């Protein structure tokens, strides 16, 4: 089991250039759980994720890991605890799946070292978890979107971090692949205790897979907690300006948001 970490964002405000997107946010990420950030477009959920993953420097406030400011931790050392899968990772041209997945070992390797036994094991393990062993020696350009996403997650897994951030890992995927990816992330969490923090667009999938939900509106955190406490028709109304009713998902027994519209009331 991965060790527990205290990961906190304290009073952070952040944004791009003059544009403030996050306003005084306080978040503590429950360790060894699946955490999902939800909210409408442009509410700052991706910014919050990127700020916590230190891609964006907050204008004020501090992100701490076990009580230490992450800005004071050497970047390679931090990269062994904290991993990130960006929303649309850049695909380098002409590289095999195994070599790409192996690049996730970078923070564990010293300057001139080649692949060690540990590196091979980590790559093999990640590829088995994501079920891409047969693709190992294929060129990444030849894969489908769903396969590629599994390769990217495998690369993040070889980094073997305790905490993994994912920015909309299921966007652009067919529903089958969405479920597949989320199941695999759940495996990862159940089996190894990896803390997962992700942004998801689909609120029903969020309700189904999350242990803990953070709801963001216009750069402010308006609710947090387990899906069944947080996901009420009132909160969804506040978040998205959507009339809806919330029922129990007959399959997963998590809350299921059923939207209303002008024709369906």
């Amino acid at each position, binding site marked *: 089991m991965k060790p527990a970490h205290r990961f906190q964002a304290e009073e952070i405000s952040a944004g*791009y*250039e003059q544009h403030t997107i996050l306003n005084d946010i306080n978040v503590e990420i429950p360790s060894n759980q699946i955490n999902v950030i939800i909210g409408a477009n442009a509410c700052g959920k991706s910014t919050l994720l*990127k700020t916590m*993953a*230190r*891609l964006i420097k907050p204008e004020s406030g501090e992100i701490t890991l076990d009580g230490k400011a992450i800005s004071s931790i050497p*970047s*390679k*050392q*931090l*990269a*062994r605890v*904290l*991993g*990130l899968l*960006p929303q649309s*990772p*850049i695909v*380098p*041209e*002409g*590289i*095999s799946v*195994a*070599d*790409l997945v192996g*690049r*996730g070992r*970078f*923070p564990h*390797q010293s*300057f*001139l070292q080649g*692949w060690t036994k540990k590196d*091979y*094991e980590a*790559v*093999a*393990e990640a*590829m*088995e978890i994501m079920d891409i*062993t047969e693709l*190992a*020696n294929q*060129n990444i350009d030849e894969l489908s979107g769903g396969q590629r996403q599994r390769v990217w997650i495998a690369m993040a897994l070889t*980094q073997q971090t305790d905490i993994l*951030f994912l920015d909309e890992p299921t966007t652009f995927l067919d529903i089958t692949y969405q479920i597949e990816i989320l199941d695999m992330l759940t495996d990862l969490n159940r089996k190894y205790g990896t803390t997962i923090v992700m942004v998801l667009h689909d609120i029903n999938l969020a309700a189904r897979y999350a242990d803990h939900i953070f709801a963001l509106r216009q750069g402010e955190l308006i609710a947090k907690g387990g899906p069944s406490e947080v996901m009420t028709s009132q909160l969804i109304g506040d978040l998205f300006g959507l009339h809806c009713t919330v029922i129990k998902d007959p399959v997963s027994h998590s809350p299921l948001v059923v939207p209303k519209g002008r024709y369906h009331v």
Partner: protein
Amino acid sequence: MTNQTIDIIIAGRRQRRRRWFIVNSLLLLLSFILCSTMLLLGSTFYTVSEVVRALSGETLEGVSFAVNTIRLPRMLAGLFAGFAFGIAGNTFQTMLRNPLANPDILGITAGSSVAALFCILILQTSDTTASIASVIAGLVTVALIYLLSRGSSFSVGRLILVGIGIQAMLSAVISYLLMEGAQEDLPSALQWISGSLNGSQIDDMLPLMLTVLICTPMVIVLGKHLSILELGEQSAFSLGLNTDKTRILLIVSSVSMLALATSVTGPISFVAFLAGPIAKRLVGTGYSNVVPAGLVGVNLVLGADLIGQFAFDARFPAGIVTGLLGAPFLLYLLIRMNRRGSLS
């Protein structure tokens, strides 16, 4: 985790490494053949034993002068400059993930050329001063492109467009310098600006050789970091890479090599552009492209020089031959990228 998976991965990596070694050995062999040919062939043909004896310091009438003073410097200039062009071009193309983003198109080579021409034609300085000035000018050009293409977010497309603009501007400056230069310096300046191994002297070679010997290991060692940088800023950063430091080290070492090579041979067009993509095609998927790109550069320059010397009635500088090869490739690349929609 099963050992079977590990075996599949090991087998694949071994196969790719084998291909890498074979490709490099063949490129090395071809370079050796071209280097030897350059020593043997000239206005007169000398035998292997004559050339070896001349090189080892024996005085043979005619042979010693031709081999040691003309052919050897010419061969060394092609060897080291070709290697430098290949590595520098590949570094930029990999770092910016776009074959168009190479020092020729971005105007970095032109920046170095302007400085070297200005020093030699107008200020009449020594060659060493010209070399140093061309390194500085190359780096200043990079900084300028970077500053001008900076927007709310980084875009390689914008960087390339700004680079093309700067390149056009610098070409105008080169034409101006050629007009202002003293009449008697013009023929050699014109030959230099089209990229030629003619008139290379052994004394000019030392700074270039030293720079290549210092910077190449640096770029090779940074190869792993370059492959992380290739994943994009966000991934590289979350893997714990100090992206700014890596970029600066890579830029300084490749621009130094490029600028010194340019100050010796002039801008041999398209070598920095072609070497990386050709090497990548030869090596195949995902193995370090640094050394093969350098070797392809060597073969391009030496091959072009030999073709320019012997294939036609008149003698053409290497840069004109590579230009003829490179221009169609540029068109091909533009058409292919436009189809895939990756130009924007």
